[in-house]
């Protein structure tokens, strides 16, 4: 895959002296969904703002589709669609007018068929003559996505697309993003919901305090840092963990009905079979076993902790 965005040594220091970005290097491949994950204030929005032309970088360079964002801002910005975090719309405008406006702003000739397709894909076609202020929050977010897609961008930035959105709408948004990727557009989304990155992304970047801590394929990341939890469902409940099981570090759960054992899938000896043998020796019967992959959340928490320890 060819790269579509190249970020090199990007720094941002605000007038207050606050360093929002401390030398970020990142390459985004065309056609992928990239999730930028990090806590609030990590520098996610600052990074997007610089790439899109809303904020100025203090140092470093960015190219989008081969165009430098400063020297050739027209080329770079034409390739980008941006959906910011805040719901900012022209409340009194009608949906279709505001989308046509965005297209014109980006220098594209009017194309009713294309705009209709975008609005239909976003389930906004029936609302096209409504004033934006009449729409619900979720619909407004869709209008902003329609505006961002109106000029046929190659890259779509979604800054916290599901912040403050209820579970059902979040599912809708994920489905929508999945459909958008089918059109070939590269998607970069920021989120502090790990679930979201896990659900959507091909690759994940973790950013904290202005530094990109890692960039990995999501599956490789899960594999690399992923631990699994084995849950043994006991035939009879027990009150305490037998001392003989101390070396596995198992914990008791499910009101004495379950034993949880965390193991590293990449390790030479996972300890699973020896644990089960030991259970047999102790005469502890079990009726079910299941294993669960640790979530990105666990991975993220451990990363941030490593950082603190270092």
């Amino acid at each position: 895959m060819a790269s579509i965005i190249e970020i090199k040594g990007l720094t941002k220091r605000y007038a207050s002296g606050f360093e929002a970005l401390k030398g970020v290097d990142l390459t985004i491949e065309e056609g992928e969904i990239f999730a930028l994950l990090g806590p609030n204030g990590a520098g996610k929005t600052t990074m997007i703002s610089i790439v899109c032309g809303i904020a100025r970088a203090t140092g470093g360079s960015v190219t989008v589709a081969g165009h430098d964002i400063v020297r050739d801002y027209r080329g770079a910005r034409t390739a980008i669609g941006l959906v910011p975090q805040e719901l900012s719309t022209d409340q009194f405008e009608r949906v279709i007018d505001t989308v046509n406006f965005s297209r014109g702003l980006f220098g594209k000739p009017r194309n009713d068929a294309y705009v209709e397709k975008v609005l239909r894909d976003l389930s906004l076609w029936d609302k096209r003559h409504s004033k934006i202020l009449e729409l619900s929050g979720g619909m407004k977010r869709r209008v902003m996505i329609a505006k961002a897609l109106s000029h046929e961008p190659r890259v779509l930035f979604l800054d916290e697309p599901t912040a403050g959105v209820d579970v059902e709408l979040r599912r809708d948004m994920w489905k929508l993003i999945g459909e958008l990727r089918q059109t070939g557009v590269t998607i970069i989304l920021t989120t502090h919901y790990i679930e979201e990155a896990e659900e959507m992304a091909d690759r994940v970047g973790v950013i904290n305090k202005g530094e990109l801590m890692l960039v990995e394929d999501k599956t490789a990341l899960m594999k690399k840092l992923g631990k699994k939890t084995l849950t043994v469902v006991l035939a009879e409940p027990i009150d305490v963990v037998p001392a003989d099981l101390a070396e596995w570090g198992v914990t008791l759960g499910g009101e004495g009905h379950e034993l949880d054992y965390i193991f590293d899938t990449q390790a030479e000896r996972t300890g699973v079979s020896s644990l089960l043998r030991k259970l047999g020796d102790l005469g502890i019967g079990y009726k079910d076993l299941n294993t669960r992959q640790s979530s990105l959340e666990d991975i993220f928490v451990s990363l941030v902790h490593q950082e603190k320890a270092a």
Partner: protein
Amino acid sequence: MSLQNLRAIASIYAFELHRFRRTLLTGLLVPVITTSLYFVVFGGAIGSRMTEVDGIPYAAFIVPGLIMMAMFTESIFNASFGIYMPKFTGTIYELLSAPVSATETVIAYVGAAATKSLIVGSIIFLTAHMFVDVPVAHPFAMVGFMLLIAVSFCLFGFILGVWAQSFEQLQVIPLLLIMPMTFLGGAFYSVHMLAEPWRTITLFNPIVYLISGFRWTFFGKGDVAIGLSLLFVVGMLVVCISVIGWMFRTGYRLKK
């Protein structure tokens, strides 16, 4: 100068005019009513006692001042509001992230505001004709002057809109500075009518030169030489363009 994205200019211009259309009735009715009121009060009640100023009937004398006053207010208000609103609502993100140059942005916003200002100026001119005979000595100069005034005050309004961080700040300059300067700038009287030292003090007010110049296009004479008036208009234009250029270079209050 960077003019490539003409569609963006057209889009913003149309968007702004559309915004004006939403308030068309008040936008156009207000200047007509205000002008009529001025004629009733100044032209009728006061004018009957002070028949002529510099050999011109008083009712006709105040027409250029009235048009200028309305155009100053309209230009500043529309242009400042046009760029302040996106800042206020947050929709400015789209403008900043679009492939649009500073020059294109200014042409679109200032062009739209100046258009409305010229429409209002023309309505007042026509309304005045219902009350009084107004001769126009230099019609082309008159139109040119209106154009220059509209553009330079819209540029000024644009600066104000970028600078303002609250609705109060948006109002404070037009109401506390421009309005008094206009009243004291000879909108309704000739500077020659003032006694010293007020006459000399008045000459430090730049608005005097603007109104005087516009009055010259009507009656062929003003309080100051027409060349001097032109110098002030062009001067204002240059200053505003320089300030806007600086704002965009530094990202002043637009970019973080």
